[in-house]
């Protein structure tokens, strides 16, 4: 009888300790000190990071980030929020640090965890200058007063605190690949950080963490339809030039054309420079052939 309060006390202490060690941790207040964003460079970063592909309204123009697109997953359906410059329904009144913490740490201005459908798990690797540029560009885009809609998730994923331990396991800022040349380094920035290619092209474990041992080797499509392809040299035999052309025009070397969500990606990569597209290709060709998702 007298044992129960003890156990309850331990439980509360345990949960408290767990919460403390996995509580939302934003960027340090000084993260943007001495950094000024450049909106022109930010337009390229905005395309490279694919922001509009998720945050524009369904069938809406790419620069109106009203949200509303839905994304099916094993955990339920996520609805992309309004991130336009509207001060009430968008992010217009957020500080630069609020935005940078959201993008790079998955933490809201109120200190809550975001779900990793928002690929901060990739953006955490981005250069803080790139993120500052991106934020400067976001502020130039039009406001839209469409309210954000709630996600439609299954229990227990509705509890955002569960993301604390998840982040402790899977929110990592170390690179997967070495990048010994400036081109590979740029390619790695574009593939691993901004372009967040792995979020779709790498398989996940039961908890939704990326399986780094099978990096970019392809994965089931979360929509349940078809399979997202292996883009390591084992699965993608195109030359660097052919990969770069695909990212520009959407045409494969056989002149088939990209479809599905990759058509959205092409709309973004078409806005990059030839050098950037070749850097992505160089990175992909430098991936080891031995990786396997099976």
């Amino acid at each position, binding site marked *: 009888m007298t044992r129960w309060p003890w156990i309850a006390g331990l439980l509360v202490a345990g949960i408290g300790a767990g919460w403390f060690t996995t509580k939302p941790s934003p960027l340090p207040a000084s993260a943007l000190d001495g950094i000024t964003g450049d909106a022109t460079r930010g337009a390229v970063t905005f395309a490279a990071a694919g922001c509009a592909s998720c945050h524009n309204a369904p069938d809406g123009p790419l620069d109106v980030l009203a949200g509303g697109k839905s994304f099916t997953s094993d955990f339920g359906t996520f609805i992309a929020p309004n991130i336009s410059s509207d001060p009430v329904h968008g992010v217009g009144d957020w500080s630069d640090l609020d935005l940078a913490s959201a993008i790079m740490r998955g933490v809201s201005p109120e200190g809550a965890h975001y779900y990793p459908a928002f690929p901060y798990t990739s953006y955490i690797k981005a250069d803080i200058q790139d993120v500052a540029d991106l934020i400067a560009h976001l502020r130039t885009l039009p406001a839209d007063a469409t309210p954000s809609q709630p996600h439609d998730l299954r229990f227990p994923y509705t509890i955002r605190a569960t993301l604390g331990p998840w982040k402790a396991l899977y929110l990592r800022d170390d690179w997967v690949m070495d990048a010994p040349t400036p081109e590979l380094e740029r390619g790695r920035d574009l593939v691993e950080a901004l372009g967040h290619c792995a979020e779709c092209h790498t398989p996940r474990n039961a908890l939704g963490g990326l399986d780094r041992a099978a990096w970019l080797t392809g994965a089931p*499509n979360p929509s349940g*339809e*078809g*399979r*997202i*392809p292996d883009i390591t040299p084992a699965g993608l035999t195109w030359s660097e030039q052919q990969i770069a*052309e695909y990212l520009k*025009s*959407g*045409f494969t070397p*056989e*002149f*088939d*054309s*990209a*479809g*599905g*969500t990759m*058509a*959205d990606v*092409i*709309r973004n990569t078409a806005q990059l420079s030839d050098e950037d597209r070749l850097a992505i290709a160089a990175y992909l060709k430098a991936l080891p052939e031995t990786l396997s998702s099976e």
Partner: protein
Amino acid sequence: MHRKAILATTALCLSVSAVLAQDLNEEQQRALTARQAHMGLYGFYLTPLGQMAQETIPYDAQTAAAAAGNLAAMAAIDQSAFWVDGTDSSIETSRARAEIWTDPDGYLQVKQGMAEATEALALVAGDGLDALKGAFGPVGQSCGACHQTYRAPAN
């Protein structure tokens, strides 16, 4: 000659019966074969145009004009007979999304986009490499616009 004809007929019968195992009737199979051949022909004519635009083969005005003309002619035809019920991507051999049937207006709109882009290309494809390159981009975008919504991913 006779033997060839018999062999060809046998091969055809075999392939048809293989498909029948999937419960497709003849009309469904004919539509599926025809539209997949149609898509294959797009690729056939896009290839020299794309290779010239990407400068992996030298520009040739006559080849470009002929290919672009054929592409435009193909994009303009009435396709309504292609979309026989029961041939969407729920069957194994089809990647045509059900949206083609449920959203015919949206589908016709992207098809019209391709008809216009290929017609614009056909008008200038023989006028030099720069003209070809300029008009080829929108053709690629029109392909992507349709595949984005109306083609299911490969398995």
